[in-house]
């Protein structure tokens, strides 16, 4: 079976890769494009560690085939900081110590970024429900939620 030739955009850059039908977008990001920020946790869409945006929509990249990214705009954690300057969410995660092992962190950050793009002023409850698909097994969620709320306030200029 010939491989699929996929032309897509990742973090604003045009990219091409070859993939098998079975390969997920997560496999393609990590194995074909060496973008290893998105993590493989459960491989069943439960943990959110592989979260990316496709055309601005938050998805689990383990539940998307690599070939489905054809012609789309993909955003990953690698596109979040601008050069050496961290995104406010990344900075607030450090300030609030909202991470320990870091496996869930790229997914949580991408999910939080998607939330704030849609709702710049979420309530704590909204943050918790939005991030319900991002599992963290070490820090716990309070620090993560506080960091997201604080970043949202800073980004609103509050």
């Amino acid at each position, binding site marked *: 079976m010939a491989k699929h030739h996929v032309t897509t955009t990742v973090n604003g850059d045009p990219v091409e890769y070859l993939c098998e039908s079975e390969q997920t977008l997560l496999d393609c990001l990590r194995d074909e494009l060496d973008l290893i920020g998105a993590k493989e946790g459960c491989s069943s869409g439960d943990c959110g560690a592989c979260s990316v945006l496709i055309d601005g929509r938050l998805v689990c990249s383990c539940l998307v085939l690599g070939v489905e990214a054809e012609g789309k705009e993909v955003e990953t954690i690698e596109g979040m900081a601008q050069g050496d300057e961290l995104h406010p969410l990344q900075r607030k995660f450090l300030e609030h110590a909202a991470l320990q092992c870091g496996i869930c962190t790229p997914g949580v950050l991408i*999910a939080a970024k998607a939330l704030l793009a849609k709702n710049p002023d979420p309530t704590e409850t909204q943050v918790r429900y939005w991030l319900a698909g991002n599992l963290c097994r070490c820090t716990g969620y309070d620090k993560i939620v506080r960091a997201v709320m604080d970043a949202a306030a800073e980004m609103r200029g509050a």
Partner: protein
Amino acid sequence: MRYEKPTTVEAATALLAGQGARVLAGGTDLLVQIRSRILNPDVVVDIKGIDTTRKITKDTSGYTIGAAVTGAELKEHPTLSKDWPGLVEGANLIGSTQVQGRASLGGNLCNGSPAADSVPAMIAAGAVATIAGPKGTRTLPVEDIMLAPRKLALTAGEFIVSFKIPARPAHGGDAYLRFIPRTEMDIAVVGCGVALALDAGGTCTAARVALGAVAARPLLVEDGAKALIGTKVDDAALAKLEAAAKAACKPIDDKRGTVEFRIDVAGTLAKRVAKIALERARKV
């Protein structure tokens, strides 16, 4: 495994008529089942290249919702949540925000789980599926599509292109609730959808009651509708609804709930959901 993304209904049905073909919409069930080796399809047919599977259109007769429209897109539609809030709530209970970015009504139904959250809500709303196949197109009410766990009334080569949701009646309301032991990210122990319509005096003129996760397939509870029609949806009518909902259940015991518990919850949920639908019908 081969991946195909046809752009016409005819090309899709031709591919699906072959051996070992599966439909890919949002993939939130299919890709998990392929990875865990429950399924091993020869061909995956991505129906998202067909425009009609990805669109919501509205006219005087109601809505046509593409089978692969995502939960997030249902929620963002400018009028659907106002007209059929229960339907959107049911669909939005499926999985996480990430899953909502991909999961679809067509997939939720055709995955063939009796606990699918959007299905009782669709049945209550009177949704009818438009099914394309090698012999042309036919329609089938949603309650007639799932026959048993993982078993559908679709034949080789057929797939659901879209769902027709009727226009909301002048004084109509719908609602969906499920019982789960946590607050989010779980599978229904019982799910219930109710849609009803009132006349100007507040008497119920039409009703549809549907239950999920209490039998081998989602149920349309005709006796539940009869309990409400012709009443003001008062306590006496709700008591009859509760009894009808409980009588319709044929649940199993499993890790999520016992037979007795599911029957009891079905009655209680039916009453609660009817009250929400009533409140909504009175407001429009």
